[in-house]
């Protein structure tokens, strides 16, 4: 799969696979294309060429030079994928509860009562039962991000994408969000892809870490290996810059 913005080749002949239930962290310097991968998986961006499948179903199948269009197939496959954004992207004019039930009710067609019940459960899980009736702007960043996680989970996705879920947060609030993600990682069999700069956290929860630079995978492997004994110079220098300061 490839993707370019004009002359800027962001992803170059990328080819990798994530097994069902696997937890994968994507690391790499700024501008290396990490976000772009997630956005393509969420169909917010289209690849210039290549094939992407989710759980065996095709999501993208693009020939070079053609501009792909949204298909019904794609829309169905997309429902299996959930995403948590760096900037939370909650709907500010709806309450926390409304945010969480919006999609189950109007996309999956779940009855409202059932959706509410599930939403309350999820909000309890992320520790926000007390804020069900509040609106997002009244919450702290950490709380908002937890709502965003609950909202994505409400669709029961098979794959969850996290794009630097903590980088817009104050240092003290990061912990609470990472706590929720850790919980998810250890207690569910959801497939998780996470872009993060929290190296210690990535090491702790991932089955595999992928190091990325200039649109190609530099190195991938179990976290112990990547963090303690990287085989590429680029990985070493990146880790040095991020960790040793």
């Amino acid at each position: 799969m490839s993707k370019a913005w004009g002359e800027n080749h962001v992803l170059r002949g990328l080819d990798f696979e994530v097994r069902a239930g696997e937890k994968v962290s994507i690391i790499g310097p700024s501008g290396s294309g990490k976000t772009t991968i997630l956005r393509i998986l969420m169909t917010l961006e289209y690849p210039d060429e290549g094939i992407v499948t989710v759980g065996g179903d095709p999501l993208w199948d693009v020939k070079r030079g053609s501009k792909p269009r949204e298909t019904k197939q794609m829309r169905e496959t997309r429902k299996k994928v959930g995403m948590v954004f760096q900037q939370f992207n909650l709907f500010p004019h709806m309450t926390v509860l409304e945010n969480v039930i919006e999609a189950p009710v109007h996309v999956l067609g779940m009855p409202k009562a059932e959706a509410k019940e599930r939403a309350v459960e999820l909000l309890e899980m992320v520790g926000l039962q007390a804020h069900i009736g509040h609106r997002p702007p009244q919450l702290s960043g950490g709380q908002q991000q937890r709502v965003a996680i609950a909202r994505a989970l409400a669709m029961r996705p098979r794959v969850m994408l996290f794009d630097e879920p903590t980088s817009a947060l104050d240092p003290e609030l990061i912990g609470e969000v990472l706590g929720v993600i850790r919980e998810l990682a250890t207690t569910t069999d959801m497939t998780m892809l996470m872009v993060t700069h929290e190296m210690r956290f990535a090491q702790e929860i991932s089955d595999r870490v992928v190091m990325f630079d200039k649109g190609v995978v530099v190195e991938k492997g179990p976290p112990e290996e990547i963090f303690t004994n990287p085989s590429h110079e680029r990985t070493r220098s990146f880790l040095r810059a991020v960790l040793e300061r």
Partner: protein
Amino acid sequence: MTWDFEYTLEFLPLVLRGLVVTVQVTLLGMAIALVVGLFVAVVRRLKIPVISQIFSFYVLFVRGTPLLVQLYVAYYILPDFGIQANAFVTGVIVIGLNYSSYTAEVYRSGIEGVAVGQWEAAKALSLPPSRLWGQIILPQGIRAIIPILGNYLIQMFKDSAVLSAITVVEMMQVALSFGNSNYQYLEPLTVAGLLYVAISYPASALIRVLERRFATTQ
């Protein structure tokens, strides 16, 4: 200079009645501008090949030409094509369409002003178009532009004076025609001018308050 108070009292009721017409013109014109503008904005946004471009050109052309000339054209030329309307109706429609080219842009900025993240979040949740527009985009987008639309309302209130050029009997026209039958423009024009300020200044002050309120609650 001497100010003729007797004269002033004589025309004041007439000018105030003209003010009522001015307000009518403004409200009706704005109603047209709001509806047509939204229509134009949405059609342009949908990017339907030829039609969206025609609408873009419409906005461009209406914005690039003077209201006065548009009024003349509508008033003097349209009847040639069999479109009949008296001065008041012509005036209201022209000023409404003129402003629709502005409101279309305001709507557009409102729609575009909704954070990209909101579109993306809606897409990530697979929300259908009706929910996307009806629940996510328009409620947020229009809320943000209410003060701007308010400013256009005030602007239209003032611009409606131009309709006097096609003899719509609004406040300016009343002032002028009273002035001409008594051969004295000073008093009616001054009074009309002050009435415009007396209405539009508090109105824009109100809008500034609204604007601040909207800004803080967002």
